């Protein structure tokens, strides 16, 4: 009998029954008897010397158990860098409560524990930090200043310059037919999960185990860090994720609040609960984007880029958090994208400002660098009077050159595009769009007075970051299969995808498979969920474990319980690729941009569950449109954040986005893993800013008009007023 196929089928999500019937248990749903509630007191100023904390009135409030400032937690080391550590970043790490200085509005200066959340908030209001205000820096292109002038003299706010280069740039510029330059910038955005952060920490004196629920993304790594910071053995600390209402890169990193709830549960010997509110989320959880690109390209007469030079400024906010220089590193490594670019040099100035610290947000360093690169390709086309599509074709890495070694590293791995047929995907997209007819139709509408335009953005993604993942698959006497992984579920459907991979090997129905994730008490190794890695890394580990189990069962009588472990290791990432295309209409009367059509063409290598892939693409595209047109964390000149509610940080709703068209192909399976799969998580967002900017240019009839995202009505009004 032929095996039944599970991989490649759009199975409904196993996760959804609980979520759709209201049985989901998110962080705020958790409670424990006799719990205390934590409330963080945050700096109201962007930069200043912290001279003291007056908590006397707060401590007197009935129901308040304790109020801590830095002195009370001085023994806890600062939060370490998880990813992309480079030397010299240590002084910039954030302590769990501010020491000596406050460096952004929202910087935790004290923390209140009370019998109920209302009292905690009342008390937090009564805590008065004594801060000597200093002039803030809110722009990463301004000259660097001092991080903490009095206590760390000479420590610059330029924490690093990330440099990447290959090829002979001087020769490229010497041979250039022309040099094309531009400066573009992407505004400050953040991932906004509808569930804010939250945690419930409990210490069990009988077993000596500290448990924190509300974990997400990287429970195993964070468990190790919490244990280290609180001076406990790893095995006496457990992190457990429940349902998670979105991650997007920001949720689940280790933040001061996570450490504070754990420390408090230990020290106060009572369960401690903390739920972030939305205003806190927008000024305490990681920000992202906010990069400025100065690009110079040496081109030949056809528009082929002989050499590219990039000076990039990355605004990391107040401290260096867990992501280290991940975003700048990815920006520099991925800027050349799908193009050959024989010579390249990028310097990324990683600078601190007095804004909320920054980290990764879905397609970190790529949403920005794709915007910059694709703006550049459009500028080259314009400079030569060539069609933007043709200029891209001239530059695409040809299929024959795969695998394509970019000649640089990122995240500690060599950038080698494992497989791809970039020209083919472009052909398929143009066919899907009926490109020539669409162009003609838009031209006719423009001739009739409408401001409509088409733009696209080509990108290479990365996925499947190693080094390794582990899974344990077992079957009990009743035939129920359990898949235990060290992955995390941030809503992406990993239970379904992992079950499908397991089912394909074991040929058991999905309904008989249970997938465990996000629990440090069930498996000793786990890398969590980030960087579009789970389907590749955890998926291949599940496949290996299932295959090992199948071998064990081959000789055993039916009904024999058994378990097997599987590992997958990878030294290189795998590189999917895609193109976004947008059709927009401008309303000159309101200066609004209406997205009429949005298409994402994406080669996934192999789709485990096409419906889940499409879901990832649609959600990502909506966020990408948000970053292109609506979302921006604006600061005033005093460093006050102006977008701290949903009335001011504007995420698109159904009314603002068209149906997203996903054109998913499987022309270039991954060569680095046995499943042939590549990641899907960041496909939908990567090129959205680029495509919409190009479409707005086209609608304006002014190539290069858009130099900054988001394209807000005020900015479009200025463009229209300046150019008619």
């Amino acid at each position, binding site marked *: 009998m032929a095996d039944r196929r599970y991989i490649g089928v759009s199975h409904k999500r196993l996760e959804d029954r609980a979520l759709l019937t209201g049985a989901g248990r998110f962080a705020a749903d958790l409670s424990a008897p006799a719990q205390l509630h934590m409330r963080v007191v945050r700096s109201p100023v962007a930069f200043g010397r912290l001279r003291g904390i007056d908590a006397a009135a707060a401590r007197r409030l009935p129901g308040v158990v304790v109020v801590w400032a830095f002195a009370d937690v001085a023994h806890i080391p600062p939060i370490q860098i998880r990813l992309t550590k480079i030397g010299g970043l240590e002084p910039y790490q954030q302590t769990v409560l501010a020491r000596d200085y406050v460096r952004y509005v929202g910087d935790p200066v004290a923390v209140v524990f009370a019998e109920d959340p209302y009292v905690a908030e009342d008390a937090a209001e009564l805590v008065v930090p004594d801060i000597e205000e200093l002039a803030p820096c809110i722009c990463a292109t301004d000259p660097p200043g001092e991080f903490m002038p009095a206590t760390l003299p000479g420590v610059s706010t330029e924490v690093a310059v990330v440099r990447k280069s290959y090829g002979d740039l001087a020769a490229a510029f010497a041979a250039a037919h022309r040099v094309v330059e531009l400066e573009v910038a992407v505004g400050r955005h953040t991932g906004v999960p509808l569930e804010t952060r939250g945690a419930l920490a409990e210490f069990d004196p009988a077993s000596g185990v500290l448990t924190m629920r509300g974990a997400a993304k990287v429970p195993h790594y964070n468990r190790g860090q919490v244990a280290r910071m609180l001076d406990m053995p790893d095995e006496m600390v457990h992190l457990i994720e429940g349902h998670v209402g979105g991650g997007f890169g920001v949720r689940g990193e280790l933040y001061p609040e996570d450490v504070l709830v754990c420390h408090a549960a230990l020290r106060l010997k009572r369960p401690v609960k903390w739920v972030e509110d939305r205003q806190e989320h927008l000024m305490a959880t990681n920000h992202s984007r906010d990069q400025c690109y100065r690009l110079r390209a040496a081109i030949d007469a056809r528009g082929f880029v002989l050499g590219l030079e990039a000076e990039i400024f990355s605004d990391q906010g107040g401290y260096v958090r867990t992501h280290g220089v991940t975003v700048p590193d990815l920006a520099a490594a991925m800027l050349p994208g799908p193009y050959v670019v024989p010579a390249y040099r990028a310097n990324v100035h990683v600078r601190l400002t007095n804004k909320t610290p920054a980290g990764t947000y879905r397609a970190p360093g790529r949403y920005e660098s794709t915007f910059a690169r694709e703006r550049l390709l459009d500028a080259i086309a314009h400079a030569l009077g060539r069609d933007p599509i043709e200029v891209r074709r001239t530059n695409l890495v040809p299929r024959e050159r795969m695998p394509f070694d970019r000649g640089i590293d990122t995240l500690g791995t060599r950038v080698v595009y494992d497989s791809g047929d970039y020209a083919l995907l472009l052909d398929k997209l143009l066919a899907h769009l009926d490109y020539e007819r669409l162009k003609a139709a838009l031209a006719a509408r423009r001739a009739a007075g409408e401001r409509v335009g088409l733009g696209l953005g080509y990108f290479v993604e990365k996925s499947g970051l190693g080094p390794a993942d582990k899974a344990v698959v077992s079957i009990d006497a009743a035939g129920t299969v359990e898949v235990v992984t060290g992955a995390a579920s941030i809503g992406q459907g990993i239970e379904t995808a992992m079950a499908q991979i397991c089912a394909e090997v074991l040929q058991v129905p999905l309904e008989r498979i249970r997938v465990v994730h996000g629990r440090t008490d069930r498996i000793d190794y786990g890398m969590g969920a980030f960087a579009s890695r789970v389907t590749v890394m955890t998926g291949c580990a599940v496949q290996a474990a299932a295959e090992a189990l199948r071998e064990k069962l081959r000789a055993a009588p039916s009904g024999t319980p058994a378990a097997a472990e599987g590992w997958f290791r990878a030294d290189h990432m795998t590189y999917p690729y895609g193109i976004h295309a947008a059709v927009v209409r401008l309303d000159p009367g*309101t200066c609004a941009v209406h997205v009429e059509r949005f298409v994402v063409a994406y080669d996934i290598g192999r789709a485990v569950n096409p419906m889940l892939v499409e879901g990832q693409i649609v959600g990502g595209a909506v966020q990408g449109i948000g970053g292109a047109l609506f979302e921006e964390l*604006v600061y005033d000149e005093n460093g006050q954040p102006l977008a701290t509610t949903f009335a001011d940080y504007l995420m698109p709703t159904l009314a603002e986005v068209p149906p997203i068209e996903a054109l998913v192909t499987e022309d270039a399976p991954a060569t680095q893993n046995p499943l042939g799969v590549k990641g899907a998580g960041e496909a939908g967002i990567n090129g959205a800013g680029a495509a919409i900017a190009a479409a707005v240019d086209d609608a304006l009839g002014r190539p290069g008009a858009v130099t900054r995202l988001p394209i807000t009505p005020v900015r479009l009004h200025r463009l229209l007023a300046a150019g008619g």
Partner: protein
Amino acid sequence: MKPAPFRYDAPATLDETLSLLAEAGEHGKLIAGGQSLVPMMNFRLARPGRLFDLNGVAELDFMRVEGARLRIGALTRHAAFHRPPCEGPTGALLAEVVRHVAHYPIRQRGTFAGSIAHADPASEWCLVAATLDAEIVARSRAGERVIAARDFFVASLATALRPDELVTEVRLPVLGARWRTGFCEFARRAGDFAIAMSAVALRLDAGIVREARVGVGGVEDRPSRQPAAEQALAGRPVSPAALAEAADAAAREVKPMTDLHADAAYRRHLVRTTTRRALERAAA
């Protein structure tokens, strides 16, 4: 995101409510739908010491036409306007405008009169009230007074109401068949606060504008009638030129605010657009 402490009372009658208001003075605040007040309390931007819940005061839950007036009781929800509450242009305008008032769930709880009393510059109902010269009926233990809309809105979130007064109803004129109305709003997203909006009413006689009401909201610290725009229309045939002149006049006369989403130049540009489009809809 938790409110500061407050004491809550749920009076059953208007008299009881007025007594509570009088007793609380500056510390008292009424709540009906709570769709503006509760977020402000949660942000601790509003911290009333006492909260009086109107929802049990049945005598305030009415809407009816009497003579040439639509009387909107204090407990009338936004959603009540999803269908025209009266015949003719007034009803049509209200049913058009309500679609711009926040989002569907908010419209089920928030009240028309609550919006008027809250006096957000971006409130659609405040603009309608100003444009149509609504009468706002205010009651206190001292008695009742009727305040004209032009005297009622004082500044952003500030009205002519005294702390012991409550808006029992808002009265709008039921415009006759010769009137044409139009509305246009621009917000960043569907349901967001208006950055600029215009409401207009034109009394036409054989294609000639006999009387014009042009109101602009979301632009200054309170909604306003635009006399220059109205004069540009009065006595003239409805023509593209007349409508454009009126829109230009409104744009010229407003003194726009600047905030995160719009600077003054852009808001002025929007006023021209929303006024012209509202007039075009009225004239169509």
